[in-house]
């Protein structure tokens, strides 16, 4: 579908250079590369592996929950399994997914830079991530933390399972996050090409920039807090241990000070991808550029003020609960601004129905539905009923996982031609996209019902009355897994056998599409001067090309 060559696809920037994939051969040229695109690709491989691993753990959990009693694993293994699922999905998949893969790959090109500001730091963040992943996984498999990904004391300081090695692994992952965040923020501030003012930065860059601010400021608090839990567990420091004068609820405050904004670390990049996809496939400039850009920023800042809604039932004054509830709802306002702006952008646009666009519609449903249930649980009275039930599980899977996953897949398809210079099979892309959505809905819609009916989360067994909902959910999980594997296969096949793609198959105006089909090693021979916005769809493609010059 996108194989036909669009006119004017010859690289605007000078000669035919060797593309980044062929710029150097051999393992060494990959392992020691400082090219942001290659580092993005290596993250891609690792992060997809983690997604598969986390997904496999989820399938084991869902299989176990098919019947009310024991099904395939013991209760102790079950506890370790849901901990692993959470840890892998949160820290090894969702947090690094879009920023480290697609942010790494397109952010420098989107601002007309030859690379990130600190390429070696970028490479280091890859290795630190890999080390963190190995330590975390080895520790969870060998020591077997069974605390859930939230590590709540006093259980986490008294459990017989090993906690310290796991939290050390997560601490290392946090270091990698901070390295990436420093790089992205400094790059966005200091490396924009001439002509790319703050009002011309692509919306994806705004999203990654906002995400990086959260990563930079929240991650150190989390790293320190869970490290203290690990120390409490091994050396009985007692910082959070009530028998030694500590306060377990204080842990929850510090933990959620990071982990609530971390939800936006996961979802803001997704919102950025969606903004790009909507504008490209509607062939229209966003209904309001600043509404989308600044709402990202707003979510990043207000996101720091909502953590208390995780502790409504842990002991909190009415006043505090009201304030935290209100702040949480502010985030819904910013999110709604985005949703309405996207929909307004579609209005009278020339919409193309490609796979990324289809994922946008799934995203929209999951984000709005998940978001509305979020407003509901931000209300203290309702939260008391739903707290620690499957309702909350379904809520955060809808908004956080559904949002991130659909946007991740949208990005994987949207930027595929740019990253690999080939076209994937569009019918297969659309089909797997339907599969992902149906699987997702089937998995988590029943969990809303189960939670509302009172089924607690993280339980190994349950009364038989919940079984039909769990059977539906498990079936959905298998459908989702199947669709994901097929989507992955579709892309892998296209990697080798897909038809060659043109430089700008979606006819986007965003700057990354101005490079050759596969960008050369340093993106641009000379830093370009750009005299137009990234969404100038009122210009023809020729005019858009003409306004990007390589003159210094």
């Amino acid at each position, binding site marked *: 579908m996108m194989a036909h060559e669009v006119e004017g696809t010859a690289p605007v920037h000078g000669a035919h250079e060797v593309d980044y994939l062929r710029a150097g051969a051999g393992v060494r040229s990959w392992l020691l590369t400082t090219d942001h695109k290659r580092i993005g690709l290596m993250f891609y491989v690792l992060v997809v592996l983690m997604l598969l691993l986390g997904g496999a753990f989820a399938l084991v959990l869902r299989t176990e929950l098919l019947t009310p009693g024991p099904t395939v694993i013991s209760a102790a293994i079950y506890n370790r399994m849901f901990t692993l699922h959470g840890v892998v999905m949160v820290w090894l998949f969702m947090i690094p997914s879009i920023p480290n893969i697609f942010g790494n790959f397109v952010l420098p090109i989107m601002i007309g*830079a030859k*690379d990130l500001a600190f390429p070696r730091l970028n490479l280091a963040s890859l290795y630190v991530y890999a080390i963190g992943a190995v330590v975390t996984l080895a520790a969870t498999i060998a020591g077997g933390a069974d605390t859930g990904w939230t590590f709540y004391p006093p259980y986490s300081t008294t459990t017989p399972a090993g906690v310290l090695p796991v939290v050390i692994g997560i601490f290392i992952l946090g270091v990698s996050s901070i390295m990436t965040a*420093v790089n992205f923020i400094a790059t966005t501030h200091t490396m924009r090409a001439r002509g790319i003012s703050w009002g011309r930065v692509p919306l994806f860059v705004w999203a990654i920039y906002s995400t990086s601010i959260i990563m930079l400021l929240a991650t150190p608090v989390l790293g320190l807090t869970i490290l203290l839990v690990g120390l409490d567990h091994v050396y009985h420091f007692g910082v959070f241990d009530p028998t030694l004068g500590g306060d377990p609820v204080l842990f929850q405050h510090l933990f959620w000070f990071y982990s609530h904004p971390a939800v936006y670390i996961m979802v803001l990049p997704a919102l950025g991808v969606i903004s790009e996809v909507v504008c490209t496939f509607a062939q229209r400039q966003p209904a309001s550029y600043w509404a989308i850009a600044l709402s990202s920023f707003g979510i990043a800042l207000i996101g720091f003020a909502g953590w208390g809604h995780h502790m409504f039932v842990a002991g909190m004054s009415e006043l505090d609960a009201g304030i935290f509830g209100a702040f949480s709802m502010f985030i819904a306002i910013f999110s709604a601004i985005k949703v309405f702006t996207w929909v307004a952008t579609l209005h009278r646009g020339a919409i193309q129905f490609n796979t990324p666009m289809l994922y946008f519609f799934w995203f929209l449903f999951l984000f709005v539905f998940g978001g509305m249930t979020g407003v509901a649980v931000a209300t203290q009275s309702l939260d008391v009923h739903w707290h620690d039930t499957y309702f909350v599980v379904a809520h955060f899977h809808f908004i956080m996982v559904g949002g991130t996953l659909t946007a991740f897949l949208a990005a994987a398809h949207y930027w595929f031609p740019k990253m690999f210079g080939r076209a994937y099979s569009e019918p297969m892309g659309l089909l797997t996209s339907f599969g992902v959505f149906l699987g997702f809905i089937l998995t988590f819609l029943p969990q809303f019902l189960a939670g509302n009916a009172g089924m607690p989360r993280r339980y190994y067994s349950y009364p038989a009355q919940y079984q039909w909902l769990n059977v539906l959910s498990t079936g959905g999980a298998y459908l989702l897994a199947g669709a994901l594997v097929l989507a992955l296969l579709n892309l892998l096949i296209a990697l080798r056998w897909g038809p060659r793609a043109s430089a700008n198959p979606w006819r986007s105006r965003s700057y990354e599409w101005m490079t050759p089909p596969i960008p050369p090693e*340093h993106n641009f021979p000379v830093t370009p001067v750009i005299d137009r916005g990234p969404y100038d769809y009122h210009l023809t493609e020729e005019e858009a090309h003409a306004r990007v010059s390589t003159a210094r």
Partner: protein
Amino acid sequence: MPESQPPAEQLAPARLAMQFEDLEKQTHAAHFGMWIFLASEVLLFAGLFALYASYRAVFGHEFSAGVAHNNAVIGTSNTAILLTSSLLVALSVYAVRLDRPTMAGRLLLGAIALGLAFLVLKGVEYTQHFHEGIFPGSAYRFEELPQAGAKMFFTLYFLTTGLHAIHVTAGLVVLGWLTWGCFRRRYGAGNDTHIELGGLYWHLVDVIWIFLWPMLYLMH
């Protein structure tokens, strides 16, 4: 990979990395990156400060007693030592800008000596505590201040000063590397970015101590 841009008259020219258009942008990016990294470091300590504030609100008297028990002479001397070392580091940046790297190297050596003195004094203090039976958490056995609050105070004392000492050690490694570079004449006028960034880090370590000092030695 960095490409060198050799203006022949300079002894130690700054190298322009491939991804930057000019040295000005490169220096700006380096400074900017360091400053935001320091913000992250501040937040790392902020978690501990938050814990201190919360537990001080709960155990006011015990915390006061703990602060009073700490050796304010050592704490204050260490403050003076760190402040002086920061002064030397600031002077070394100035010396490099005047194209006198050897002078800068000597100043940095002085700063390193003071940093080591800080750690030695810290060690002396820790040893005193250990002799009295003051250990973090459940290992705490100091009979004079046996309350849960004092135990929490000293746990936080060890955590904050321990984390700070790790930062001092890291800072010393950075300063050592910079000193070596100075004596090898790798830095000079127009090529002072590394010294300045290392200096910023050292100042941060100093600033954090400025907050720890009253919290742990004066506020009783």
